Each structure stands twice: as structure tokens, then as C-alpha cells.
């Protein structure tokens, strides 16, 4: 999780920021699909993918992602090496690493608004896309709101509030009361915000069948290069086996 709380960790200087989100989704799906190929071609594909990540300035994000699963990598590698062999251990580890890192291309270089527009272009209903964008915008508000609820209920000396600050593994009746005192306002506030937004959106003609997005997406030269390169590398990897 990025430091400072919930929020996207984006690489602002990456050249992939200029690439159409649809292209990045295609690249990520190709990387995920490549997980099924044998070791030698996988290594080749993986090397190309690592090169792309490094060139796009995403090495740090990729390393952080892989670091989170380090225990899983270590245990699997040891088991596979012990019971099957080193080649198999390397194969599984590479596949897991590729799967873990595949969608960094999208999520570390695309803002939710950009993904929303791309989603609409790919046929996602505008309302669903708008709902997603609203959810993302609300993440930052949520922490503040939660702190507000916690403080407001603590100020009422509601029994059991202390238990939420210092979580413990056994559940007491007070914990359910305290949980209700926090969860009910959180859900109610969410519903009120959803209602305000839907009224405001309706007041600006949302759900109009005439809707035309101002932002347009066009595949540029870079998009075409990346897509062709992906097809060549993936095809070459499959042929290499």
C-alpha cells in the first residue's frame, strides 16, 4: 500500500503514460496469457517484459509487488526444487512473478479517469464507469469520514470503543455494539453521498442517450509499436518452445 494511506501510486514520468489504456490492458493480458508457456520461451518473454518495465520506469513498482509475495515465492521454490527439480522451481517462480507483475503496466500508469474513458470505449456502460470513478474519488474521503465517526462515537463514551483501537482476537458483546455504532453511520453516510451524487448527475442530464465523451482515444504510433512488438514477442516465445 502506498505510504500515507489509500491511494494510487502512479509513475508520472513513465512513457506508458502516453500510451492508450486499451493498449496497456492488451499488453497486460498478453503477459498474463504468457504464464502458460514453457520455461525457455517464458524466460525470453519474461526478459522482454522486464525490459519494458525497466524502460517504462516501473522497476520499483514491480519490485515492490514481488516483494509482497516473497514468502510465497520462497516456499514454492523450495518445495518445487526439493520434490521436482530446479527447472520446475524456476518455471513456477517465473510464472508467478509474471502473473504478479503483469497488470502493473495498467495500474501504475493509468489514472481511474483514463481507465473510465477506455472502459467506455471498450463497451463498458457509462454508468458503471462513472460509478467506478466515483468509488475511487471517495477513497480519500473515506478515511477522513471514518476518523470522524470514530471520534464522534468515542465522544459518546460508547462502551467498547477502546477495543477497536486495540484489536484483540476474542469477540465480546460490546464489540458488536461498537461495530454497529461505527458501521451503521459509515453505510448511511455512503448512501447519502450516493444519493447526492445521483441527484447532481441527474440534474446534469446523466443517462442521456445523446451522451458524447469529450475525451477521445486514438491509438498512436507508440501504441501500434507496442502492440506489434507484443505479438512478435509472444508469437516468437511460443514458436521458440
Amino acid at each position, binding site marked *: 500500500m502506498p505510504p500515507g494511506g489509500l491511494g494510487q501510486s502512479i509513475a508520472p514520468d513513465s512513457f506508458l503514460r502516453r500510451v492508450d489504456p486499451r493498449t496497456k490492458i492488451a499488453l497486460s493480458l498478453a503477459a498474463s496469457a504468457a504464464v502458460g508457456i514453457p520455461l525457455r520461451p517464458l524466460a525470453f518473454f519474461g526478459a522482454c517484459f522486464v525490459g519494458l518495465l525497466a524502460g517504462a520506469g516501473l522497476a520499483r513498482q514491480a519490485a515492490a509487488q514481488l516483494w509482497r509475495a516473497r514468502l510465497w515465492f520462497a516456499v514454492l521454490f523450495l518445495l518445487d526444487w526439493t520434490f521436482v527439480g530446479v527447472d520446475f522451481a524456476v518455471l513456477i517462480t517465473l510464472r508467478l512473478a509474471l502473473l504478479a507483475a503483469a497488470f502493473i503496466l495498467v495500474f501504475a500508469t493509468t489514472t481511474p479517469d483514463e481507465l473510465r474513458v477506455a472502459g467506455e470505449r471498450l463497451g463498458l456502460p457509462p454508468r458503471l464507469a462513472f460509478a467506478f470513478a466515483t468509488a475511487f474519488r471517495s477513497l480519500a474521503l473515506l478515511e477522513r469520514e471514518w476518523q470522524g465517526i470514530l471520534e464522534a462515537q468515542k*465522544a459518546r*463514551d460508547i462502551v467498547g470503543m477502546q477495543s477497536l483501537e486495540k484489536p484483540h482476537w476474542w469477540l465480546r458483546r460490546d464489540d458488536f455494539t461498537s461495530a454497529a455504532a461505527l458501521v451503521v453511520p459509515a453505510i448511511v453516510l455512503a448512501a447519502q453521498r450516493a444519493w447526492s*451524487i445521483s441527484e447532481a448527475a*441527474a440534474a446534469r442530464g*446523466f443517462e442521456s442517450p445523446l451522451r*458524447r465523451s469529450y475525451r477521445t482515444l486514438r491509438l498512436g504510433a507508440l501504441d501500434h509499436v507496442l502492440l506489434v512488438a507484443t505479438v512478435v514477442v509472444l508469437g516468437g516465445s511460443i514458436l521458440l518452445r
Partner: protein
Amino acid sequence: MRPLLEADQAAFCYPGRDSAVGPFSLSADSGELHHVNGPSGCGKSTLARMLTGLIPHLYRGALTGEVRVDGQRAADIPLWQLSARVGFVGQNPAAQLLATTVRDEVLFGLENLGLSNVEMRRRLDTTLATFGLRELENRDPRTLSGGEQQKLVLAAITARRPQVIVFDEVLSMLDAASARAVAQHVERLRRDGTGVVAFEHRPALKTWYQDAHCHTLANVPPAESPLPDLPQQIAPFQVRVAGVEVTLGSQRALEDIDLSLKGGQVIALVGANGAGKTTLLRALAGLQRHSGHIHDGTGARPRLGLCFQNPDQQIFNPSVRQEILFGNARIDAARYRCVVELLGLVPYENTPPLLLSEGEKKRLGLAILLMRPGLRGLCLDEPTLGQDGDHRRRIGRIVRHLAGAGYLCVVATHDLEWAAEWCDEFVVLHAGKIAEHQQSTTLHRPVAKEPECHLAV
């Protein structure tokens, strides 16, 4: 010639309610200004939503009578079409923000009109220039002030070029300067030929209504009943605030705060957004870490409670009664009875708090606070925000009544008119420091002499 917007004996009954709101009749045309006023609970917001088609398109219930737009029944016109002709701007600007930049906020409504990109760009540029938002184009709307946000919402609606715009208390959450700025934009719209139907109670903006068609939704103002007796007086006490400082993150939110406050006073904390009003309230209530001291002269910290700005943060019980009594180990029936009568919550004792109006919820928040044993003072954070004249007056009477019983009431507020009427002293904060501390020079409304009643401490 038929009017553009017309309500003809329109009434609306919400699900589960016995009586309908209305009936109302009103007709408005391009270039006209209509000012609609009425006491709290008379149906202003309901009428505003009927005029814009939000009722019945978004609200369930029984609509009687008719609302017509250009002779057509509003209920028969799809909402997306209706909104192109009749715009709507609500009370809370932050709740109407839909996008991540100022530019996208304006574009949101334009995209739904099916305009070409060239036309959208032209309208965007014109709107940003007209409303002075050009420099803020790439800003996140959530980082703007309340006045700027309301201006942005108005700009987003105006860009769609509706023939009439309905304003539902759009100035009620703004400070005086912001309210004037937004009112000036509305006046310019009207001069440019847009019809305006404004539901507004701010008396300070009377110039705005000079040539308006005025509509009052209820002729009889609600009767003002005497406030109930409060139990035993709080013994005189003082609160000494000495050298209080608060740092939030890397910023000094409060610096060198020295104050001497006394029980029985109503103190207004005023200042611009970010001046430190809420931080000081929280420090007084013991919810904010601070350096320095807050004590009552004997070295002990006086028990001051904070009434939060948003009562929805606390509400979760099935009834008002249970909400007020929740968390009290020992139920003091007499105290409870006194509190609900004082705050006018008797008719709602068995009502789920969620279903109360905003003003009623704010009073509920105050009731929850007053049930705390040992309380000697209250800190209220913007108790009149977004509220109409009746509620503002009611809160004023209540805080004066509590002060009369010996409570210290410290109120953070943007509502200078209210503060001048009901508060004894002003503490003006600026950038975390006290800029001024003065007595209120405006005579406050005398409270009728009530027999003594005892709110047990």
C-alpha cells in the same frame, strides 16, 4: 402565452407519510426572478425538486396536481431532457461535485447534451471565463472553498444553457462574502434572460430579491413555545486557556491561544476557513492533542462536550429516544424529559433518527451531548450551517437558555448575523491565532423569563 415552468396545485406524499407536502402553484418564465420562502418543514426542497422533475423521476411517492414544462407534463418528459431546460443547483456544493478537475466538472453536463467537441470546447471556455474559473481549470474541485465550489456547480449547470434554473438554498452553507459573489452571478444570469426560481432564506441578500416575484409557502409562522425549565444551575466556573498550541502534520493549526471564558456565556468563534475554529473547539472538548493548558482555575479540566457538525456520524439506533439514551449506564428519566422538550424532539421520540430533517438531526446531536453527566459546557461546530431562519432562531434560543442555566457555550460559526444576535463575545481567529476578542455590540433577543428547571449535572 404559456409559462415555461408551471406548478399547478402540485403536491407530493412521501412513502410512509400520512400527509402530502403542498399543494403549490407557481409559474415562471425566462428572465423572471422568483423568490420562494417559508418556515422550516413547509416543503421548499420538495417543491424545488418537483419543479425540476427530480420528483417523481428519482423519488418514490404520490404526486398530485401537475408540473408542466413548456406545456408538457414534467412526469412525461425523461429527466435527461428536462434537465436541459430546467437546471437545478442544490444546497451543499461539495455533495454536487462529480469530477476530478474543474474542467471535467463543467464538461460532465455538456457531454450529456450530445454536442460536438468544438461546441463543448467553446462553451467550456466561455463558462470558465465568465465565472472566473480559468485559473482553477486543473484543480481538484474538492480543494476549492465552499464559495468556489458553489460557483463551479452553478457554472456547470449554466454551461448547459437551461431556460430556468431552480436554486435550493444555494447560499445557506456559504459565508457572507461567498454568498454575495454567487448571488451576483445569479443576478447576471437573470439579466441575460435565464429564469430563476430561488428558494432562499438569507435576509442579508434582500437586494437580490428587489424585483422578484415573492412566494411564501405558509402564512402562519410556527408558534414559539416557551422553553422548558432547566434543572439546577451550574455553579459559576471559568475556563482558562493558556498557551494552547496545536500542530497538525507539519502545520501550526493553533498558536499562542490565551483565553478566559466563563460559564453562562455564549462565545462565538469566527474566522475564515482554516483559521482554526474547529481545532480550538476540539481542543476545548478534549479531543485534540495540544500543548499548553485548559483548566477551570482549580487545575482540573472542565467537562466540555463537542456537538459535531454532522450528526449522521453518530446516528445508528432505531429511535430518537434510544439514540439519546444510548451509552448511559444510568437513565435519568427527568433529565431525558427535560432534554427532549428543550430541543423540540418530543414528537419524534419513536422516530428513527435517520428519517429526521437536517435541523432535527442537529438538535438530536445536541440532545445526545446534553445527556452526558457532569457536562458544564458545549462546543458547537456550525450549528446553523445550511439551516433556515426558524432553526437558526431555535438554536439561538436554546444556547441562550443553556447559558442562562450556567453552561458555557462556545460556537464556531460563519453565520455572523446569528452570532451578533445570540452571542456575548466574539473571538476572531486568523491563521491559528486570536486576532480579536470583543464583546458583542448587538443587543441579543431577550429570552422570555422562564421558571427555573433543573437539568441535573
